[in-house]
C-alpha cells in the first residue's frame, strides 16, 4: 500500500456537460478539441489515466456542478465510478480577523465542511484570511482573532471527520511577518496545515525547513513548483497580484521550477507522511499536459525516494 495518494486540484473552468454521448458528432461540428474538455466524464477519466486517485474540488465550481449532478453525493459517486475519489475542497476564510464577520465566516465554513462530508472528502484546505492588499498589515490582535476563528472552524470540521489545512496564499493578509505566529496561535487539535510548496516559498520560507519544523501539523499538500521564491513585499502586497499583466507565472509543474522536491521527499520519508498529496497546477496553459508531466516527475524522480 502506497504512503502517498495523489489528487489533483480542479482548476478546470466551468465544465458544461456531465457526459457527451454524441462525442464523435460533437467533434465533427468544428473539429476542434472542445469536445475533449467539456464534460466531467472525460475530465475524470483523464485523472485516472494520469495516475490521480483523487480530485480536490473548488467551492466556486459547485453552482455549475449541482445542476449537472443534482447533489454533490451524486458527483462523488460519478467520480468514483471512474476511479477517482474526492479528497477534499478548497475554502476561503475571508475576513477571519474581523469580529463583525465572525458568524458569516463560521457559517460559510460549516456549509463547506458539510459539503465535503457529502462528497466523502477528508480535507478542507483553507486560505486563512482576506488578501493583504486593502487589509494588511494585520495587528497582533487581529492575527490572534483570526487564529481563534480558524480554531472554531476546525472544531466543527474535526467533529465531522474533516481536517482543516491552513493554505497560505502568498498574497494573503496572513503573510511572512505573522505566518508562523498565526499557525502557533491556532489549536493543533483542530487546525492542521496544507503545505502549498510554491506559496510558502514565494512568501519567503524554505519549503523543506518549513516541513521539518511543522511536519506534525501538516496533513496534506498542494504540490507545485515556482521559479520566483522569496518575492519582495512590494510585489506580494500589491493589488490583484495573482494574475500578472505580462503573463508571468508564479507556479510551475514540480520539476519545472527551482524548488528542491527531492529533499522534501526525503523529509517526508523521515517523518513517515501518509495521505493525500494534491498536485496543483494553476496558471498552466494546458492542465492535461501538466497532469501528465507531473505524474512522470512523481513516478520517475520522486518515487524512488518515497511513495
Amino acid at each position, binding site marked *: 500500500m502506497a504512503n502517498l495518494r495523489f489528487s489533483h486540484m480542479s482548476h478546470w473552468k*466551468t465544465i458544461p456537460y456531465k457526459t457527451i454521448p454524441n462525442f464523435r458528432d460533437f467533434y465533427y461540428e468544428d473539429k476542434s478539441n472542445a469536445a475533449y474538455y*467539456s464534460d466531467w466524464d472525460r475530465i475524470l477519466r483523464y485523472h485516472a489515466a494520469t495516475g490521480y486517485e483523487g480530485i480536490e474540488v473548488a467551492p466556486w465550481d459547485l453552482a455549475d456542478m449541482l445542476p449537472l449532478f443534482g447533489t454533490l453525493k451524486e458527483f462523488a459517486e460519478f467520480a468514483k465510478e471512474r476511479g477517482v475519489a474526492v479528497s477534499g475542497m478548497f475554502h476561503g476564510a475571508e475576513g477571519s480577523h474581523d469580529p463583525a464577520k465572525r458568524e458569516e465566516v463560521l457559517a460559510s465554513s460549516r456549509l463547506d465542511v458539510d459539503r465535503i462530508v457529502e462528497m466523502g472528502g477528508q480535507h478542507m484546505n483553507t486560505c486563512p484570511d482576506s488578501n493583504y492588499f486593502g487589509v494588511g498589515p494585520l495587528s497582533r490582535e487581529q492575527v490572534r482573532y483570526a487564529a481563534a476563528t480558524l480554531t472554531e472552524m476546525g472544531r466543527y470540521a474535526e467533529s465531522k471527520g474533516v481536517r482543516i489545512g491552513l493554505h497560505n496564499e502568498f498574497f494573503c493578509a496572513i503573510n511572512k511577518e505573522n505566518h508562523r505566529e498565526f499557525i502557533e496561535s491556532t489549536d493543533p487539535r483542530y487546525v492542521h496545515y496544507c503545505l502549498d510548496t510554491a506559496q510558502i516559498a514565494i512568501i519567503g520560507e524554505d519549503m523543506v525547513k518549513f516541513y521539518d519544523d511543522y511536519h506534525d501539523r501538516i496533513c496534506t499538500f498542494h504540490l507545485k513548483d515556482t521559479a520566483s521564491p522569496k518575492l519582495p513585499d512590494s510585489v506580494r502586497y500589491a493589488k*490583484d497580484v495573482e494574475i500578472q499583466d505580462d503573463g508571468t507565472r508564479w507556479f510551475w509543474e514540480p520539476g519545472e521550477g527551482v524548488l528542491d522536491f527531492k529533499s522534501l521527499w526525503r523529509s517526508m520519508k523521515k517523518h513517515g507522511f501518509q495521505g493525500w498529496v494534491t498536485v496543483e497546477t494553476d496558471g498552466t496553459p494546458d492542465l492535461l499536459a501538466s497532469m501528465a508531466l507531473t505524474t512522470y516527475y512523481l513516478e520517475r524522480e520522486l518515487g524512488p525516494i518515497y511513495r
Partner: protein
Amino acid sequence: MDSNRKFALALDLVDLDRQEPNRNRRESRYFWDELFTLVPAAGFRAIELPYQPKWDFGGRSGVPMTNYAVTTKYGSVAGFRDAMKAKGIERIATVAFSPLLFASAPTEVYFGAFAHFASEALRFAAETGAESLVVTPTPPVGILESTHGEASVWSREFLKRTSDLLDRLALEARTTGVLLSLKSEFWSLLRGDRIDTFLSGLDGALADIDTAHLRIGGLEPAARIRSLSGRIGSVHLTDTAFVDSGSAWRAVNPEFPADRPTQVFRDIGLGDVDLAGAISALDDASYRGWLVCSCRQTRDIYRAMLRARAFLDGIAAKD
C-alpha cells in the same frame, strides 16, 4: 454595400467561463492588449464590451469588463479608451449587461445587484461614448425555476419588478444620451416577441435584434425586423444551426443542451440564419445603429473574427 452600415465586433467571442487549454491567460492584461491590436487587423474598428461584474471580485482585474478593472489597469475609463484608440479601435459601440451572475441569488439580492450593476454599466457606457447599453432583461427561465420553482407562480411579479427596475434605468439613460436596448434571448422569460408587450410598458427602451436567438425562438429575423417598424435600438448578427426540438430553452443551462451536446451559436457564416436577409431588412427599415457581430461560443477567437470579416466582405461584394 450600404455606406450607412457600421459594424462592430462583440468581445463575447472571448469565453471567460468555459474550458479550453490556455484559458487562464485570458485573465492577464497582455492577452487583451494583443487582442485590441488584432481586432482592427480583422477590419473592425468598433467593439461591444460585455460588462461583467464578476471581474470586480477575486483579483482578476486583467479582464477589462468593469469600471473597477479598467481603472485598475488603465488608470481611468478615458485611459482605457485612449489605449484602445492607440491600437486602432476607434470606439466602444455598445456595452452589454446581463444579470446572469446573480440569477441564483435570493430575490432581493438579485434585484439589488441587477439595479446596482446595470446602473454602473450605464455610466460606464456613457463615459466610453457608447451608443447603447444592451440589457438582458431576465436570466434563463431554467435557472430561475431551479431557484424559485415553476415560473407561472412567480413570473408575473418578477417581470413587474424587472419592468420597474428598467423604467428607472431608462430614465437614467435619457440623462446620459445612451440608448437603452433590451435583448430577447431564446431562454428568457421574454423570449421571441413576448418582449413586445413588456417593451410597450417601458418609456424609452428599444428592442435588440439578435438573429440567432430569434431564429432558435421560432422567429425569422427579417420578418421580426419588419414587424418592429423602426423600434430597434441595437442589432447582434449571430448565427446558429441549432433547432430546439425539445425544451432546451427551459434548461438550467440552455446554451449547453444536455441531451445532445452541440455548439448552439456558430461563428458568423457557419450557421444557417439568413443574415443577408436580416441586413437587407435593416436597410429597408433605415436602421442606422451599430450591427454588432457576435461569435459567442466560438472555438477559435481569431478564426471567428476573420470568418465574420469574410462573411461581411461577401455581403458587400453582392450588394
